[in-house]
């Protein structure tokens, strides 16, 4: 199930950044936050809470922590506070983050 973006399509340009969201190739604009890129791509939830409720970015300014996603292996990343980079791998989070996915291991 994929929901259309809740935002209007942006005029296309030659400058874009390609990344993946849950394995799907997505084009973002330079300067987009990860949250903006996700919202432009789809109207779906960006994560599900422990109780299974769908959530997406809410405040867009780092206050609410509702846009937590996995960015390049780092879970619990505030998607609204990170800018997109070429080749970025973004995953939506289901419930709490998994400790074993911690890329730096024995912190």
């Amino acid at each position, binding site marked *: *199930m994929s929901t259309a973006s809740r935002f209007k399509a942006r005029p296309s340009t030659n400058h874009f950044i390609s990344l993946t969201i849950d394995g799907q190739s997505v084009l973002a*604009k330079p300067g987009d*936050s990860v949250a903006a890129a996700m919202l432009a791509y789809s*109207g779906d939830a960006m994560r599900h809470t422990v109780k299974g*409720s769908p959530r997406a970015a809410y405040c867009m300014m780092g206050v609410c922590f509702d846009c937590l996603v996995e960015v390049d292996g780092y879970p619990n990343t505030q998607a609204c506070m990170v800018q997109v980079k070429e080749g970025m791998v973004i995953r939506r989070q289901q419930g709490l983050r998994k400790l074993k996915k911690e890329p730096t291991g024995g912190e």
Partner: protein
Amino acid sequence: MANEFDLIIVGAGPAGMSAAYTAAKNKAKVLLLDEQPYAGGQIFRNIESQVNGESIYGDEYETGKALINRLGTQGISLEFRASVWRIDEARNVLWSRDEVSHISTARHVLLTGGAQERPMLFPGWTLPGVMPVGAAQILMKSSGLLPRDAVLVGSGPLLYWVAVQLIRAGAPPKALVDTQTPAMYLKALKHLPQALPAMVTLLKGVRYLQEIRAAKIKRFSRSSDFAVTETDHNELCLSFKSKGFAQQITAPIILTHHGIIPATNLARSAGVKHEWNEQQQCIQPVVDGWGQTNISGLHIAGDSAGIGGAEVAQASGQLAALNILCLSSYISKLERDTASRKAFTKRRRAMSIRAFLDVAYTPLAELQLPSNETIVCRCEEVTAGEIRRSVEQGADGPRQVKTTVRAGMGPCQGRLCDPTVRTILASCQVPTSLPNARSPVKPVKLGELAALSNSTFHNHD
């Protein structure tokens, strides 16, 4: 490298930017920290890279550009994507970037962290597609994203300004669902004469309302009893009452606004005294006319010292900087007082409209006292009913509510639920003490804390 700066400013919005410039112009060494990747704060966000900025930022576009350009002044060090998570008694400012923490120290610290939106609660406000209007504005400014057929709900200057921005950008809202009542305007009228010095701002507001009318946006007034549900097509259905009649609108996105409140977590965690502002229905720090707090060397200016808007923030930032320059012996008291006259006048003029606005757009009691099924704490998914039950069971303040039902224990640290918990407690006749805020006020990993070696820390006293 203890006290390598004269002044550390936290937040590069209008207050922080004007303070940085004022201080550096008078030879002080300034460190300006901001969580975002660029300066501007929310109001002038991403202003530098806009092609036709005036259509997005309105009359304030030039002001914003000028403030940002002046950050090039010698003596200002800029650190972006820097999240400040602690300020201690010795004015050590601890900030984090890319999972590495740093300590910067100065004799004076000025907090200019701005404001956040007062959460607007109703059943379904946590669903994807429900956002505050400020969030939509951020997406418009920094990514050129325009909401599709948005329904705007609530009241207040920002709601109307965003409606106008969307109309101008070719993405007119589908409807404007206004919580305003004629009674609120009537009540505010008595504050109108004192708002005359801010005539320009008043007229701007009138022009916005005319622009919304001219665009023939469907408008509902005196609205209440909001609830949002998801439709089968993943759209959102907003049901509400307008003038007593039940209404429903379906839209992909619903943008809410219910006023803004000062961001106080960092100041509260640093021990700054706060008080309740009845007129603005929010907690704000106790500061004098220069922005000085009860803690020596700690100052607050701009919206985080009390909501006043960008013009007030700019003047307050300048005043705080002049006072700090005087305290640091860069300028004399006489120089401070002479240089500050204009800023005081400017601030008084800009503030004169507040009483009118605050009364005309008072937050609706119903929205601050949500129904039992409404989620209050988004992080921990705690409903208003659970909070009321904890009070029945003996919770006698915000602290006990927190430990009983976990409201405020999630990563946002109560930023979104503290105001509502307070109103619920007040409605249950429970004393509403100031909610605690403790550092780290932003999540920091244990490894990051450990990496701050003791030796680094103790060199700064």
